[in-house]
């Protein structure tokens, strides 16, 4: 019998992340590798555990096989609890019919039975799209202190950026009086981070009301929050001033990886007081040969480095041959870069082979000067999972490949 929990977290992990191009053809966005050994979802999951939340529902519907296998029984995050722990919640059939998750709110609505097992005071709604460290427990305490029906985490952005976000207009006490989705003329710079703490009783009421409305798109930002504001519920903004990065585009994914490459990185992965947990591959320690040079980079276990690595993030079990150069790049696991191949300003998927003498991408300055802007991969070269680039073949800056090239 599950026992009562103060808080249950619901993690929306259904997003396809289509702006990440070839990287998400096989996996959902939260399962995208990051930082040499992590997946994006490791951040909210680890935040939950570090915040003392031991019951997490992960709502999936897009290409979940990889993500399900990754989450498994939750052991890497210490979420293999007898009472609570992590549960993957796909859409399901009830009675004669089944329904896909129509929107973020509907996804939670369909899993009310899961939440009610734990009879929680609060439900924390998270997404699997962002890199950040945050103590959700403080936000819950803030919600309790304010006796709020809902609190929304906000980040102060610049006035120019504000037009790209959902903006919360607040009174002096941080109570919210208005929510504007991507306002042309923002009145505030408090951007919603898509992190909500709800009193469960209130939330359930509004989820059920929203579901009964056939015109609703069943979305937190578009429907639930405005409905609660209209009804005069106590709603507060919770200010967050740490590092927070939406890795929804290839450019921002690259940036976020590169921001790890310093002793005082805003995302300190070596901080033992707020560990980011991940499912670790069983790989031997990396071997760096006499011919190798490794500068200002992250390199993970199982790598064999015989060439030059500079300013790059290299995931586990990557082979970099003699004379090969990897610069300003992100190399996902199990990729092979053969002797004398060159990879610059690129993102390479898992299990890619770059054969001898092949050239992928161009030096960052050159790429930015020569590639026309507006491509999905920006000025980078991006290679999808498991593809092979033949000997001495070139992949130009700005190209995104989903298939082998010989």
């Amino acid at each position: 019998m599950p026992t009562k929990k103060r808080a249950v977290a619901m993690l929306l992990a259904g997003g396809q992340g289509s702006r990440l191009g070839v990287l998400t053809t096989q996996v959902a966005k939260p399962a995208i590798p990051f930082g040499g050994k992590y997946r994006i979802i490791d951040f909210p999951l680890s935040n939950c555990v570090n915040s003392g939340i031991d019951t997490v529902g992960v709502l999936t519907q897009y290409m979940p096989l990889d993500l399900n296998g990754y989450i498994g029984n939750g052991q890497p995050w210490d979420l293999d609890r007898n009472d609570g722990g992590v549960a993957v919640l796909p859409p399901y059939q009830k009675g004669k019919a089944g329904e896909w998750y129509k929107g973020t709110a509907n996804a939670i609505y369909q899993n009310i039975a899961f939440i009610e097992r734990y009879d929680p005071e609060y439900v924390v709604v998270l997404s699997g799209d962002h890199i950040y460290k945050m103590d959700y427990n403080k936000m819950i305490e803030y919600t309790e202190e304010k006796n709020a029906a809902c609190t929304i985490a906000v980040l102060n952005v610049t006035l120019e950026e504000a037009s790209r976000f959902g903006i919360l207009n607040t009174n002096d006490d941080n109570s919210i009086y208005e929510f504007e989705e991507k306002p042309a003329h923002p009145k505030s710079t408090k951007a919603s981070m898509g992190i909500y703490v709800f009193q469960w009783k209130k939330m359930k009421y509004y989820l059920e009301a929203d579901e009964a409305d056939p015109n609703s798109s069943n979305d937190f930002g578009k429907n639930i929050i405005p409905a609660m504001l209209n009804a005069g519920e106590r709603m507060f903004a919770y200010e967050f001033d740490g590092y927070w990065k939406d890795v929804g585009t290839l450019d921002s994914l690259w940036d976020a990886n590169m921001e790890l490459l310093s002793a005082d990185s805003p995302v300190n992965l070596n901080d033992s007081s707020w560990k980011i947990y991940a499912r670790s591959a069983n790989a031997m320690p990396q071997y760096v040969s006499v011919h190798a040079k490794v500068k200002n980079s992250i390199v993970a276990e199982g790598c064999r480095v015989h060439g030059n690595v500079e300013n790059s993030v290299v995931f586990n079990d990557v082979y970099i041959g003699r004379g090969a150069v990897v610069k300003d790049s992100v190399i996902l696991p199990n990729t092979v870069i053969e002797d004398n191949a060159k990879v610059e300003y690129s993102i390479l998927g898992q299990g890619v082979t770059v054969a001898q003498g092949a050239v992928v991408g161009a030096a960052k300055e050159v790429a930015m000067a020569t590639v026309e802007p507006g491509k999905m991969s920006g000025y980078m070269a991006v290679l999808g999972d498991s593809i092979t680039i033949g000997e001495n073949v070139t992949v130009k800056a700005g190209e995104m490949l989903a298939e082998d090239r010989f």
Partner: protein
Amino acid sequence: MKDTLGLIFAYQNEESMQSLTKVRASSSVPYGGRYRIVDFVLSNMVNSGITKVGVITRNNFQSLMDHLGSGKEWDLSRKNGGLYILPPFSQSTGYRGKMEALKNAESFIRKSTEEYVVLATANAITNQTYDEALAYHKEKQADITIIYKKSQVKKYEDGATIGNIITLDADNRVVDVAINPEVGDAEVCRSTEQIIIRRSLLETLIADCASHYMYSFHKDVLQRHLKDLKIYGFATDKYIAKVDSIATYYDASMDLLSGETRAELFYQPNQVFTKIRDEAPTLYLGDSEVSNSMIADGCIIEGTVENSIIFRGVHIHKGAVVKNSIIMQDADIQANAELAYAILDKDVVIREGRKLYGWERTPYVVAKGQVI
């Protein structure tokens, strides 16, 4: 090999590895950047399809228990079979030999249902499975099969032993067993201390030894029964290093810097499993210079590392130089410190500018937690 039970002797050479075995059993000495010595034999058993393994301990095995946990990393957390740590039944003075240790594990062995038993000491660094040896054992209808390796023996002077040398006839039947003989430079057949035996025979031998106050496997079983038991040798040509002294430990570690050894141990379909530790990947900063070294996750490398094995969570600061050394978990090598031919146990701090130089045959060993 579902029908085979594994038994590991995890308590040997507790006195010959200086401070490394003061805080732990020899089988749990850290090795190769992220492993413990016992990982190899244990993984070999698992990779052979053995799903029930007993680990015979003597004393000082808290660290070993912490490492093995429920056996989950070796997929030995099972309802049927799995991993069993076998502590000494009572606080006696220890085991005088393997047969005495097996006597202590007697009820575990009797309760098992497997037909065969693989006996192995924990202190062998090797990646091999027992399938072929077992097939050979069956084919020869052997009573006991000793896996041996033909090799020249390197001599050490610090407590390392040559071990048990066997002599074989043309049919590979063992005709003599010599315990730690003087062998000079000759190529000899050295027991790898991996033995296959029928469980029922092992039970008989345990009872027989116990009732006759005998305790040595090699003396009281092998030597005594050369004629009446069919004892065969099975040759292996796999890499194998026996770690039973500081010098053999250092050599077996440095072997990892050879591509061939790494290929034999790690670039294999059969993995070496070990306990997972949560660590960020290693970060190289500033003027890091790394050459011919193995480096585990969780390190921050800002200095120079050459011909060394660096364990998880080590921080090598700017200007520090580490050569021909083994640096265990969470060491802090501060700016401009220098180390050569050193073995640092876990949690050691080398303060700014300090220099420690050992020598190849006698590396400088720093005990766990020391600040120098």
